[in-house]
């Protein structure tokens, strides 16, 4: 027996650009900031959830199992079961998918599923020798021992790498994520201008959505301890122009690369939650769902072309449900890199690719830019890796409701060579 699963509501923090040094919130702080008002605006008691699942990639030492720490800090009760999931950039969607399957299969009625990430809090990582030296120093007893240890000190012990840089490098191919986008740009013939134009558009869309108040229900202000109220995604650059972007040099492969800081997603902090519920829970608490989760899919491919993950994960969904390109009214494809999104679109329009790789007779077709990432994406609002997958599902549901769309897909590429996708329908 499979049961319908509803997306009842959701909320996220503004995505806050990392500006050198740790930002004002830890991963759990972020989850608490948007979780509090979300639980406050829904009628169910805060201890009514069967489970809390939170995606988070860079867990900090003080917050092991951030899902449980967040649940307790949100006042959901000592008896709240909670676990954290990690599938790199797909973590925030993994939490939704796990919740979706549990509810669909009948073991759970209502689950709070989220994603959080504070990339600005990524630790400094010291090399192995330096770490051993620090350990030895801590164990050294007495002045002589300490002095002896001190002589072993080498300057390069103090050149830590930012952990984030390591995290964004594929451990199998040793390619940086930006380099995987360079690979796709090369393979699919995406030029710099097209990528930059896509990026400019992303900023314009987000700025328009912010100005129209279309995000007001989804993005709730976060308040830090210094008294600053963070109201909106602060990485948006509405007056970004092609000229300005053209001035930027390649960020990953100097001097000839096409992927720049301007046409890549931003490094940000942020969190997002959605409430998923069965029909029983919807009735019991008098809830008013915004969408229904229909199906989900995960796919894997060579890590060096991880950016094609959305194509490989979405295709089984459309095939399983017999949906043509025009049957999907809205798409959210996470904007890791402009070149990467554009490569996905190109692949779907390529007869040979669709026939040989996806098993279609001809090309899947062209996804109209008017249906894709309608209110901007990770290029303009940032990519807190553990939160992004959650955000695109939430925003798809909200955008479908606003536009009266019937069907939508949220999908993302995942570092390490994976892709995830979810199919939603209007209620």
């Amino acid at each position, binding site marked *: 027996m499979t049961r319908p699963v509803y997306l009842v509501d959701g909320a996220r923090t503004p995505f806050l650009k990392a500006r050198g040094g740790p930002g004002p919130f830890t991963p759990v702080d972020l989850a*608490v900031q948007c979780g*509090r*008002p979300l639980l*406050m*605006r829904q009628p169910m008691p805060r201890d009514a959830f069967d489970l809390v699942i939170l995606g988070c990639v860079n867990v900090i030492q003080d917050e092991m199992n951030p899902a449980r720490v967040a649940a307790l*800090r*949100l*006042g959901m009760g*000592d008896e709240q079961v909670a676990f954290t999931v990690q599938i790199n950039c797909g973590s925030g969607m993994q939490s939704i998918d796990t919740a979706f399957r549990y509810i669909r299969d009948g073991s759970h009625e209502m689950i709070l599923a989220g994603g959080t990430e504070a990339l600005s809090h990524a630790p400094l990582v010291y090399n192995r020798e330096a770490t051993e030296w620090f350990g030895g120093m801590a164990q050294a007893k007495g002045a002589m021992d300490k002095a002896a240890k001190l002589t072993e000190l080498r300057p390069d012990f103090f050149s830590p790498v930012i952990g984030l840089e390591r995290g964004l490098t594929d451990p199998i191919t040793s390619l940086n994520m930006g380099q995987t986008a360079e690979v796709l740009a090369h393979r699919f013939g995406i030029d710099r201008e097209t990528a930059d134009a896509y990026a400019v558009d992303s900023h314009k869309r987000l700025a328009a959505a912010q100005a129209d108040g279309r995000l007001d229900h989804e993005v709730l*202000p976060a*308040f*830090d*301890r*210094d*008294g*600053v*109220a963070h*109201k909106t995604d602060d990485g948006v650059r509405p007056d970004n122009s092609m000229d300005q972007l053209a001035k930027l040099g390649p960020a990953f492969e100097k001097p000839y690369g096409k992927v720049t800081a301007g046409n890549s997603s931003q490094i940000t902090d942020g969190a997002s939650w959605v409430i998923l519920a069965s029909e029983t829970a919807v009735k019991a608490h008098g809830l008013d769902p915004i969408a229904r989760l229909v199906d989900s899919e995960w796919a894997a491919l060579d890590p060096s072309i991880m950016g094609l993950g959305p194509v490989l994960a979405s295709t089984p969904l459309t095939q399983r449900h017999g949906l043509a390109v025009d049957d999907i009214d809205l798409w959210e494809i996470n904007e890791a890199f402009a070149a990467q999104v554009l490569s996905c679109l190109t692949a779907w329009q390529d007869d040979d690719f669709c026939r040989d790789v996806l098993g279609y007779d001809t090309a899947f077709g062209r996804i109209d830019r008017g249906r894709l990432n309608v209110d901007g994406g990770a290029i303009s609002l940032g990519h807190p890796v553990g939160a992004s997958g959650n955000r695109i599902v939430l925003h798809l549901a909200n955008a479908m409701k606003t536009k009266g769309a019937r069907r939508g897909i949220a999908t993302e590429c995942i570092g390490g060579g994976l892709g995830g996708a979810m199919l939603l329908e209007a209620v």
Partner: protein
Amino acid sequence: MTDVLEYLPKRLAPEETPKPQGVTNWRYAQGDIAQLWLDCADTGTNVISEAVLRELDTLLDQIKGDRPRALVIRSAKAGGFAAGADIDGFADLRGDKAVQMLEQGHAVLDKLAALPFTTIAVVHGNTLGGGLELALACDHRIGVEGVKVGFPEVQLGLHPGLGGTVRLTQLIDPVAAMQMMLTGSSAHDRKARKLGILDALVPERHVEAAICAAAAGKLDHYSGGLRATAMRTRAARALAATRMRSEAEKKAPNQHYPAPFALINLWEDHGGDATEMQKAEIASFAELLDSATAQNLIRVFFLRRKLKSEGKGKDGIDHVHVIGAGAMGAEIAAWSAMQGKRVTLEDVALEPLGKAVKRAVGIYDKKHLSGIDARDALDRMMPDPNGLGRARADLVIEAAPEKLEIKDKIYASLAGVMKPNAILASNTSSLKLADLVATAPDAGRFAGLHFFNPVSQMPLVEVVSHDGAEARTLDRLAAFAEGIDRLPVRVTDYPGFLVNRILGPYLMEAMVMLEEGKSKEEIDCAALAFGMPMGPVTLADQVGLDICLEVARSLRNGLDRPMADTPDWLAEMVDKGHTGRKSGRGLYDYDNGETPPDLPADDPADSIIERLILPMCDAGVECLRKGVAQDADSVDAAVIFGTGWAPFRGGPMHYAKVRRDVPRRLEALAAEHGVRFAPDKGWASFG
């Protein structure tokens, strides 16, 4: 179903140990390590009463005969070891009777100290005053985590009287000991261990092991160190005492607060000889107990208890929604969250909400909350720009600007949104509830809840009734105030309610004097000399000149009696934005480095003091006549806890009773300065 944590046994069951025949306050179990549990009858808190000491005296004889290896003394009460001496028991003792009682008490503790086997006090929670003196008479003190030790006697105008001055100065660094006793501040667990008051600090689960270690002689004392040795000479003590006197004089002048000086003398003269010091302690304590200051401060202690008792019962309030994130709303929200309430704080703008979070961080910092406690309090306090909390709160506190239209609009928008049983309370200080109630969703569940600024420092909350308010609503609000560790006083809907009605003339008369050409320092220093915590000019700046103007206006319009006129320049200052300390400039110019005086005048003009103080007494009498407060004690309590009114004088009503000539002096002032001083007709039946 039972929560698993609740279900697990606590493994501490003092009630299984019986009380010996004829003993009501102690439980005793014989054994190799004998156990003596202090468990005062018919109360949740132990105090060291005459009966407790008398019973202990008898028990010690028996225990001595039982010849255990060690004796453990601990408390059967969950809240703490003992809160102090039994103030009710000694407040009325005078002269020889006091000396006699003290000597008996000393004899019991000396007997305990002289036992031929090891004695161990296990202390947890509040271990204060007489409780600490009992523990100090033991060989060892084992503290349970969370313990708080101290000698708060100075707050009652006294110093320790059961040997505490002797034993503490001998046990630890005498300067640190004196510091504790002079300030009345307590030392929490690690601090107490570091000072050497505790020989060990352990969690409850390791108490038994620590007792065994102590009994086996494996628990070392910390000695007071070098300084303790040095202070055995009189010359060294004289030097330190001089420093202490000048410090004490700054904080609490000898003239008003004699106890710190008595304590310093005691130590300086006898710190080198325990026997002499003990005798002197008894004499000094008995003398202090006779002083008006101690009697009035003890009175304040009882007044606090009276207000607390007005907030008995359950409030049924878990979630508080505060509307308006100005200074007041933010303080109410931060304080309530710190006290465990779930709080939503609403404002139309984000900026004040952000500032409110920062303010909360500052308050938690000042109150020394641990990182985890501060985080949890901040988590409980949710800035709420969309007013989501309105529908979930059990209590909505409106702290919006003092404009009828604004409040009306807010109240109208709450109808049908608030929970059926929720209360709406206004924090207004200058509007009448009678004018607000019309738009409140439910008159029965509407009332005033008037906090004082800053909430985190001023303990008073006025619970204001009006004709349509349900008794249950007022009870719940009083219980709420008590539950968040504030002191509720029940008052009626009267211009300025109780406290501002009384405070108004103090501030207004100061403005008149400024207009007459008196200097602000002259006025403030006179008030300080009377014992006020700050002069009226400084206070007006603190409260905000705009608020003062508003309160003055509401008093002038609402009261059926002549009031002082407010000088025009005051309104002009407010118009220019010079609203007081909050704007950086008021009657004092803070931005340009001007600071209000903090030293009292040596020779203050009686005329200034009388013009400031006597109208407050008069206003109190008027409030009593009009039934604004229940009785004179409520008036005194409210004015002391709401404004810091010279506590050693016992409150304006008490002061008037003692002085006896207030109405006559008012008449004289009326003849000289105008009808605003004409005594209220309530004086006829006062006193």
